């Protein structure tokens, strides 16, 4: 085990996979010589060279079009979309082409590609560079959606995404890039579609994703100390496929569920999970489902406003203290 940052884990995962498989290539804006605008791909160009690590023009459609063609013709491309907000210009190629090709060719065409993108707020980047758009991706049939919360999960899940024969959108949370954690040495591959129970409690089950996971864990510690409320915290990790088995069994244990979501409230991933919980284990609930989300509004770039909008430790703590009776 070594202590790495979330951003170092990105580069380590890509390097691990490029070393073992020559068909893995990497393209995006400023990812090569500059090492990425978030410095998450430092050292890859130096190790793997121009052919496999390529800077592209500023055109998200060109990046994904090239990645798609490469995937169809036998490579395993990793494409970076610098800010996940820019996926908005990519939806035709993502939704109508990448996600549908295997189905429409009757399984003749594989689409082993990964779209890596920096997602979410907290970095004062304003309304067009701070959105948490995992719910956009979640609603497209034919694409996997992964969002890790720790350096170890970045390494293991990104490696798994690269090896996956189907397209995966891999959301890295910008505000987590500097966070540190212990990461297994050597080859580390995780499994996509498995949620992780990070804390066991008796009173309430908190479902969280990405940046919301460390905040939920901190809130859970405070709830235990200050309110005597003992919370389970589940890191969802993958929205598609969704680990309903773990989620439902953890919900049933406490009978109370709170989702903590960075995406805006309307059609956020927690709404879908709430619907599944209501269908599958309604009779095990001891409290209405509570969703803690960013409101349905454009994000502000002003520090104080952005901090008010995105669920914080104190908002999670306050809401759960109030709702759990």
């Amino acid at each position, binding site marked *: 085990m070594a202590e790495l940052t979330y951003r170092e884990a990105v580069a380590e995962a890509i390097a691990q996979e490029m070393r073992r498989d020559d068909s893995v290539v990497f393209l995006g804006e400023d990812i090569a010589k500059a090492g990425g605008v978030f410095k998450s791909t430092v050292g890859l160009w130096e190790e793997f060279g121009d052919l496999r690590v390529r800077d592209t023009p500023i055109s998200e459609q060109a990046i994904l079009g090239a990645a798609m063609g490469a995937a169809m013709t036998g490579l395993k491309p990793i494409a970076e979309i610098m800010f996940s907000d820019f996926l908005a210009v990519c939806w035709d190629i993502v939704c109508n082409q990448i996600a549908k090709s295997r189905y429409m060719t009757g399984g003749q065409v594989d689409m082993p590609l990964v779209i890596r993108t920096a997602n979410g707020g907290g970095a004062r980047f304003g309304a067009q560079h701070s959105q948490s758009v995992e719910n956009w991706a979640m609603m497209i049939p034919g694409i996997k959606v992964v969002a890790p919360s720790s350096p170890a999960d970045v390494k293991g899940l990104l490696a798994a995404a690269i090896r996956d024969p189907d397209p995966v959108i891999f959301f890295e949370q910008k505000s987590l890039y500097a966070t540190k954690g212990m990461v297994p040495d050597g080859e580390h591959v995780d499994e996509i579609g498995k949620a992780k129970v990070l804390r066991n409690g008796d009173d309430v089950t908190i479902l969280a994703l990405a940046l919301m996971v460390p905040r939920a864990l901190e809130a859970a510690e405070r709830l235990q100390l200050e309110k005597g409320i003992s919370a389970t915290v589940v890191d969802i990790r993958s929205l598609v496929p969704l680990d309903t088995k773990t989620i439902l069994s953890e919900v049933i244990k406490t*009978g109370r569920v709170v989702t903590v979501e960075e995406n805006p*409230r*309307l059609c956020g991933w927690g709404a879908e999970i709430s619907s599944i919980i209501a269908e599958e284990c*309604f*009779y*095990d*609930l*001891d*409290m*209405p489902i509570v969703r803690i989300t960013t*409101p*349905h*509004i454009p994000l502000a770039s002003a520090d104080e406003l952005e901090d008010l909008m995105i669920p914080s430790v104190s908002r999670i703590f306050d809401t759960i203290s109030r709702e759990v*009776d």
Partner: protein
Amino acid sequence: MDVLMPQMGETVAEGTLTVWHKSVGDTVSSSDILFEIGTDKVEMEVPALADGVVKEICVEAGETVLVGTKLAVIEEEGIKESIEETYVENQIIDTKKSTDIIAQTNISKRDRIDRSMKLSPVVRKLLAENNLTHNDIKGTGRNGRLKRSDVLSYLEDNKSNKQYLPDTSSRVAEFNDKTIIPFNHRRKMTAEHMVRSKATSPHVLQAVEIDFSKVEKARYQLGPDWKKREGYSLTYLPFIARALCSAIKDFPKLNGHIEEEKLVVFDRVNLAVAIDLDFEGLVAPIIKDADLKGVTEIARAINELAIRARAEKLTADDYLNATYTVSNNGSFGTLITAPIINQPQVAILSTDGVSKRATVIEKDGEDLIAIRPIGILAQSFDHRAIDGSYSGAFMRRLKEILETRNWAEIVS
């Protein structure tokens, strides 16, 4: 229209809503059965009394509420204003409170619900599975809300209490196959009443042997015509009931209620008759003013009560102010039954089997062995109200009336 918990008889203050026959959204007509209620005295079906749609159900099945409590709301056909009003009101509240209507609608709606009154799905499930009601357990949540953990710890406590009882579970487990029959509403009511009666009243049993020759003679002479005319047999019971009412005139303290340290004696006899519902329970509706009725009227009244009891058509008024109870076990040929007093009454009589027996009679100064229809009448009385001599004298009087009256002439 608001549907309220009805008044079922004058003395009933609360009732248990046992079953809903309709759910929210169902269309009902005024004659449709909407729900069933049970009190300590009666179970009955209640019709909707309005045409429309069930808009809201305010009381869950199993809850006990005061008379007049709102149970449901039926939106009558053509009347929609109330909904629109509520809708407009909600809109105003929501818009006032917030700039984020979508988020705020949830919060304001939640604020309006008094959650302490609501049972969560898991609590309902646990209560149903364990045959409990929310009244059985104290809620420790906010505003007394009953939480899942309250039910679970109640179940845990009860499990540990059971360890002090003789352990039969291992024996049952050996056989492996068993049937669990949860008490229904009537069974629970009976159980509660019987335990309370035994705990309240020091019961004393006294029995007399009756020679039913005169009654038998009347039944022999009148029975065939009766059966043809009335459609059912003329049994011993109406004769015993008639004799009972006559004897009570001489011993009025038996026709009363015990209220704390007082005995309330009634002028009229409202004779409760225990009726078995084909082994599915027991009810004791009354023959009102039985002391004013003859054998024929009593027989008809008993028959009519039995028919209505088995059709579940008794109302609370059929139980009102019972003053004395008779329990008839004779048809099973029992020798003697020690009945439990129907609270708050003073006494209860059991009539047991009548059979031909050799008995010694005295005729013209000589003892003879005769064959006579003999049966035992047994009375349990509450020793708080009267003593054995009073009850004994009453039994002697009852015996005398049954054995000496010329019943054949009286009835015809």
